[in-house]
């Protein structure tokens, strides 16, 4: 099992109603349905992912967050809104965060850390935008238009008076290593945040 799934699972109350933004092939929604008896919806735009979700018997809605936002969902209508590895790809991450916390009191967000030492080293050594296995795109054709560091993200949260209930920093394989905790913004590759307003 993917370590991030297990981590997120621990934060979710059984029987919750979820909204997963950019749900991909529905791995997380499916896992939570099996382990926590959750229900809810995934938003996705990739046709293959949508088909995979349908095959798994998940409710999946084709909706482009950058075009339609989340205005069609009611305030406080979910127990959790989840966004894994997609915040850096939306047009307005700050407004997205506001919208997510309008729909539910609690949010779970994961994103790649641009402050990871390999990124810093790459930029310092080559003077070019880092390209790596977890961030494999060139600057001009990347979907990741709003990369940030953990520190950047936490600054935004404190500006917005958002409460970070929990943060787990892991490596690319979602493993939780001891050295990551020594210096998360340098050593962590992916952070999983549990936020509340």
């Amino acid at each position, binding site marked *: 099992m993917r370590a991030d799934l297990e981590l997120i699972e621990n934060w979710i109350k059984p029987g919750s109603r979820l909204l997963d933004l950019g749900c991909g092939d529905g791995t997380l929604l499916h896992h939570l349905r099996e382990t926590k008896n959750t229900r809810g919806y995934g938003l996705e735009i990739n046709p293959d992912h949508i088909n995979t979700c349908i095959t798994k018997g998940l409710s999946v*809605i084709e*909706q482009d967050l950058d075009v339609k936002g989340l205005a069609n969902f009611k305030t406080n*209508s979910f127990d959790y809104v989840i966004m894994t590895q997609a915040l850096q790809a939306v047009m307005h991450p700050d407004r997205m965060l506001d919208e997510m916390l309008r729909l539910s009191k609690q949010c779970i967000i994961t994103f790649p850390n641009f402050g990871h030492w390999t990124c810093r080293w790459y930029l310092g050594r080559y003077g070019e935008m880092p390209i790596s296995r977890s961030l494999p795109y060139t600057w001009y054709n990347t979907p990741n238009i709003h990369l940030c560091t953990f520190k950047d993200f936490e600054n935004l949260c404190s500006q917005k008076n958002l409460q970070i209930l929990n943060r787990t920093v892991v490596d690319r394989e979602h493993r939780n290593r001891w050295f990551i905790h020594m210096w998360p913004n340098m050593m962590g590759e992916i952070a999983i945040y549990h936020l509340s307003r």
Partner: protein
Amino acid sequence: MPETLPPDSVGLVQPQIAKFDFVLPLQSGRALPRFELVYETYGELNAARSNAVLICHALSGHHHAAGYHSMDERKPGWWDSCIGPGKPIDTRRFFVVCLNNLGGCHGSTGPRSINPETGHRYGPDFPVITVKDWVQSQARLADYLGIHKWAAIVGGSLGGMQALQWAIDLPERVHHAAIIASTPKLTAQNIAFNEVARKAITSDPDFHGGRYHEHNTIPKRGLMLARMIGHITYLSDLSMGEKFGREMRDKVFKYGFDVEFEVERYLNYQGERFSETFDANTYLLMTRVLDYFDPARDYDNSLVEAVSQAQCSFFIAAFTSDWRFSPERSEILVNALVEADRRVSYAEIDAPDGHDAFLIPTPRYMDVFATNMNRIADEVNA
């Protein structure tokens, strides 16, 4: 006309008639003393009777949804693209039922039928039917066929409205509803187009207040105009442009008002063909069924409350170039279902063909539709 039947065709099919010798009360307060429904079936009903799929037709549709009536038939049934072995509604797994709705003109009781109370054709005296009435009549057909619960009810456009009404009115009898290129109610613009179509028919001097049969005539010109205006709303600017552009029969202007542009020729041809086979009173009736459809009305105008009655899962699909029932209209339904905490998947399919796209087998549409129906087949052990 096929020389041999394609391998993914349901093959040669034969319509059947179900006769119901009892009164069907209608939403209007009126009733039909007895009625008949003509229908076709494809595939086999399984022992558990769990694999039946009901296909609901749109405005000008009928019971002949797939296959051929004879080797001489020019074209297969109207939804042959989606029904057959290996197609999205896979007849190797599903038992498919498609009927001609009440009020139709293809064999079910309608304005052309004899009114048992008078011995004459109903004509304009045929009661105005609603989607709710159709659901009730279709439920009688389900009883007749021994189907307690449909694995799925599937329909495009007006057909999708029937699937939705089923889910609300008879929730325990629907496992899944697939609603394609449809809407939870018509807009003023939709009703306006219907009114122009009706006016075209009723103002035809051959209409005779709907009693044209008594005058041995039909309001051909009116029906033709109605179809022409309807047809424009089924296509998109893009698909019309691609099909006809500004092509002309002859390359030079004739400085007159006869048919010169290809699009004119096409519309005239479509209108003409339609007016020869379709019944004008049925056309009036079908457009009214559309106008009246609004399931929220029974629930204090709350669509959320209406769809909260449903127990089934939903599949909703819309097409980007459909301006008759645009994706936004499907999304109103999706949002209501989400708010009502119902299971729903939604696909917005990029297709250039306007409202007619629901009949056209574009790859993305076929993929997602087939994926959905296969999932349903698994769920009901088809």
